[in-house]
């Protein structure tokens, strides 16, 4: 893929992610979806990172990584199935919306307790190193998640054991109602030094800047086997979740379509480089809308999982206790 094609494709994913995001938020308001954590604002940094990766790299993502997943080829319907918790869902409808899983694309299943995926990423990287493979692990998390013991443990162990992990902090400036300045006294990227790894900050709203940094750092990590902490500075344009009311705690916003919106920033640069014009932009947006609307209506009709699935996968082999309870309940 040449550079032009690569960036236009990245832009297309950002638009698709945004379109899906808005569709789900609207559907939630209409009572067609239970809950959702919007991604709006974090498209550029996720796609920029994804562009720098190989197919066999492993991703220990968090609940806002829809653009990341779409860019690596996860089909829209896979995400919608998870949101619906229907019988086609990879997770058999067991998890709340926004907790995706896509093993085929090397995405780990998402958990709610934040940052608990980080030590796992270090473990996965250890396995890679042990088997002398060349792939790497990327793990993502929010600014709030850097306060957890899991962040500390994972950073420390990845550094101590020289593990190929890219810690991508998606600093969207807020952890529900807590602004990042009250989360930590130092800039997040600076924490890397204390653990003994590379650390840097990048404008995560600029697709081009993000890709450049991601490419360089991923390459270093792949070649040296050493970890890095990248702080991608962005902004949570929407509410924390569909249950959240940001007017309780903040007034500053980046409205959609304003000049701080990563999609607007990408459009501007793509046009400057002559990679895209207004007609193409319009076409990409229309195609995204058509695809999302079509898939959404289609997947909404998928039936819920069968009740007996609730009792599966607790262990490889079920036991008499679970089987007895299944008999009692069904």
């Amino acid at each position: 893929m040449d550079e032009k094609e690569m960036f236009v494709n990245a832009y297309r994913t950002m638009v698709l992610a945004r379109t899906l995001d808005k569709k789900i938020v609207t559907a939630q308001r209409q009572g067609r979806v239970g809950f959702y954590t919007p991604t709006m604002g974090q498209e550029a940094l996720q796609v920029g990172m994804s562009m720098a990766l190989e197919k066999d790299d492993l991703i220990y993502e968090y609940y806002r990584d829809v653009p990341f997943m779409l860019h690596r080829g996860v089909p829209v319907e896979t995400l919608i199935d998870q949101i619906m918790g229907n019988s086609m869902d990879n997770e058999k409808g067991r998890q709340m919306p926004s907790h995706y899983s896509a093993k085929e694309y090397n995405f780990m299943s998402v958990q709610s307790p934040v940052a608990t995926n980080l030590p796992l990423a270090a473990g996965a990287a250890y396995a890679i190193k042990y088997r002398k493979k060349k792939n790497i692990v990327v793990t993502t998390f929010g600014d709030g998640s850097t306060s957890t013991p899991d962040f500390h443990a994972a950073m420390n162990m990845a550094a101590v054991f020289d593990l190929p992990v890219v810690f991508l902090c998606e600093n969207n400036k807020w952890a529900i109602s807590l602004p990042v300045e009250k989360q930590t006294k130092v800039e997040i990227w600076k924490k890397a030094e204390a653990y003994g790894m590379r650390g840097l900050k990048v404008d995560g709203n600029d697709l081009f800047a993000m890709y450049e940094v991601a490419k360089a750092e991923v390459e270093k990590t792949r070649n040296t086997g050493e970890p890095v902490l990248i702080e991608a500075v962005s902004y949570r344009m929407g509410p924390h979740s569909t249950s959240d009311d940001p007017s309780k705690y903040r007034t500053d916003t980046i409205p959609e379509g304003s000049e701080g919106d990563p999609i607007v920033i990408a459009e501007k640069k793509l046009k400057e480089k002559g990679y895209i014009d207004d007609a193409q932009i319009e076409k990409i947006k229309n195609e995204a809308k058509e695809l999302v609307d079509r898939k959404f209506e289609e997947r909404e009709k998928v039936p819920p999982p069968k009740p007996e699935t609730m009792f599966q996968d607790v262990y490889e082999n079920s036991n008499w206790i679970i089987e007895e309870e299944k008999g009692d309940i069904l």
Partner: protein
Amino acid sequence: MVQAINSTLDSFMARDDSIILLGEDIGKDGGVFRVTDGLQAKYGTERVIDTPLVELGIVGMAIGMAVSGLRPVPEIQFQDFIFTAFDQLVNQAAKMRYRSGGSYNVPMVLRTPYGGGIKGGLYHAQSGEAYFAHTAGLTVISPSNPYDAKGLLSASLKYNDPIIFLEPKRLYRSMKNDVPDEDYEVPIGKASLVHEGDDLTFVTYGSMVPLVLNTVSKNNLNADVIDLRTIMPYDGETILNSVKKTGKVIIVHEAPRTLGMGAEISAFIAERAIDYLMGPILRVTGPDTPFPYRLEDYYMPNETRILKAVRKLQEYR
């Protein structure tokens, strides 16, 4: 229930400046369930602290405050997220009085929403009361209605040992009953007989109390319904008195069956009142699986399952 807890915290904070609230999003935002709404505006950021995202730190700091003469009320946003703080609870809070020969104690009321019924899936619906009840030194409470929430919280805020105050989130908005304005306490360690009858004893607590009461009244069951209110130490006397009268027991909780509170209570009854029993002690509980999202209704105990247990016991006379 949200209102009862909020106003109780408010009135105690007004009187006692040693009470400090700390947790994630509890200040400006008023808590994700709005339980602490307005308290930061009233008492300031020093007394209602929006903390960084670290449960271990919230609980650890609260314990430190408590041993130093304050009365912290930490909030864990969802009980499911308490586990990084479990070490602090089990190895510091619970053992402080004992290990210091009684010279230090931890007057802390840890509040946290728990349980299912709001489509929370694996990590916003768990009922972990047994983990805490299994730890010597912790006192575990769960109110089933706004009146008890105020009374139990009032008693807790005067108690000198660590309390795990489990708030059934399903009842936050749905349960309304009259809460008097004046002060009163619901004693810790005392159950409440919320319905009286002769044929059967239900032992339950938290979110299952309204379900059991509904089932009893809808089906005209002649049953005692015991709302434990305090899970640890549970009120053995009230349980035994009822069981000796009815000879039949059904224990209902949301938490998984194996080693849940039902297991402890059945053993307790078997040890002391087996001669009075006319049939097996039955449990209606969540199954031993994680808590599912879409199939939540199959996980939660319901009227049908309770009636199935009732019918089974009716075979014994």
